[in-house]
């Protein structure tokens, strides 16, 4: 079963994402800030198939968590969720190897097809 880790500081959005993704048949873990993301990945031995991280979260942001994970050698594909349309323009250096951006409000059909592409094979 494809295993996803999603992070957003809004519990409501986490609930929405988790519900929709589970309906699509994914196994979903949640985190509410960057530190929880790092802890969850350490706990799972980097076994997740995909990370879906909110770019801006209080405390440690998704981008900061990703920077630490990449420095540790974690190569899990990442989709960055951002409120801004031009999500990637600021603070997403190429060395972070972001696989794609998802803007809010979320277009779920596009999100599902991105996830399918990134987790195939």
């Amino acid at each position, binding site marked *: 079963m494809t295993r996803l880790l999603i992070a957003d500081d809004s519990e409501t959005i986490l609930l929405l994402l988790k519900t929709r993704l589970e309906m699509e048949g994914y196994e979903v873990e949640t985190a509410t800030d960057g530190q929880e993301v790092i802890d969850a990945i350490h706990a799972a031995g980097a076994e997740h198939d995909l990370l879906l991280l909110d770019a801006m979260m209080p405390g440690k942001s998704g981008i900061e968590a990703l920077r630490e994970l990449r420095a540790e050698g974690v190569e899990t594909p990442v989709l960055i969720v951002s*409120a801004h349309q031009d999500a990637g323009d600021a603070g997403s250096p190429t060395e972070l190897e972001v696989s794609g951006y998802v803007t*809010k409000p979320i277009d779920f059909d596009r999100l599902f097809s991105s996830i399918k592409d990134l987790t195939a094979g």
Partner: protein
Amino acid sequence: MIGVARFLQQRQDYENAIARSYQSEIVARNRLAQGKNEAVARGRVVAEQAERNSLQEDIDDETRDTALLVGAGLIAGLTGAALLFSGLIATMRRPLEELVDASGRLAEGDLSARVQVGGLAETAALGSAFNEMAGELQAQAGERDRLDRMKDEFVLTASHELRSPLTSVQGFAELLMLERERLSPKQVETVEIILDNTRHLVRLLNDLLDLARSDAGRLTIRPAPTDPAALVKDAVRTIRGQTEASDQQLVAEIEPGLPELLVDPDRIRQVLVNLLANAHEYCPEGASIRVEVKRVGADVEIRVKDDGPGIPPEQLEHIFERFTRGDAGLTQRVGGTGLGLAISKSLVELHGGTIGAESAPGEGSDFHLRLPAEASS
């Protein structure tokens, strides 16, 4: 709009200051002219005296000597007055020339233009008034820039903060619609209303954000090799639900073998969806909307045509300007913001392309954009 009003006010203030400076110059000139008249009048009195003296010449030789003396004095006096006057002109001229030069620079937008205060009391007063006015203008321009930055910052923050709750509203309404077979028709209708209005809010938010970015020169694109056919099909798919609900025909005719475009796919898709949404919203039920994509020289041309009511020439002229909406825009059906085409134009131009429209009342509309193919860019 507020910016324009402020600019007009500043311009008015500037013109008033110039008018004031002219007035004080006129006062100065009048004073000088008055001085000259007094001298002439005095001269005339002295001359009459001299004439009378010369009449007495025969009677009194001694008096004639006096008359000669007075005559010489008169000539000397007049020459002196003339010299003094030309000296005054010269003293006034340099500061005035400097003022003219500085006013020109100020008018051209160099708000740091200042003059050296000096010369006669009047020109000195004029010079310091000018410097004060220029200083005020410069301070106001700084304040305006600061307010503009605050406005941009506000729009960005507001857009960011509003987006999360909107994501939830839209997302959960969509979730409800996934189980529509378990809802009553009334409930389905209710959820559809929520979704329609959420989409409208999102569109408004996106347009305002783009506009703020465009004003701040921060409207950016991320070009990538893009298949125009896929892009057009994607945009058509987005709008199809809405055209089907209005019984409108939507056909895409895409020439095979089109070259790739080096464009930001999200942004060009946004432009296409905007053109299609306009066609859908301004056309009556049962209308026909047609998208044609073909290669024209080194460009790819995309046309969105409809057989709707068309656009009168006086509106067509301003159609790509902000807050311009067709007449139908005043009816409830049209959910746009009057910003879509202005933003589309900015976006297409950022890609090095062009956008235009042809239309006439009763003859439908034809919006077309051209984008350079990748090989040629």
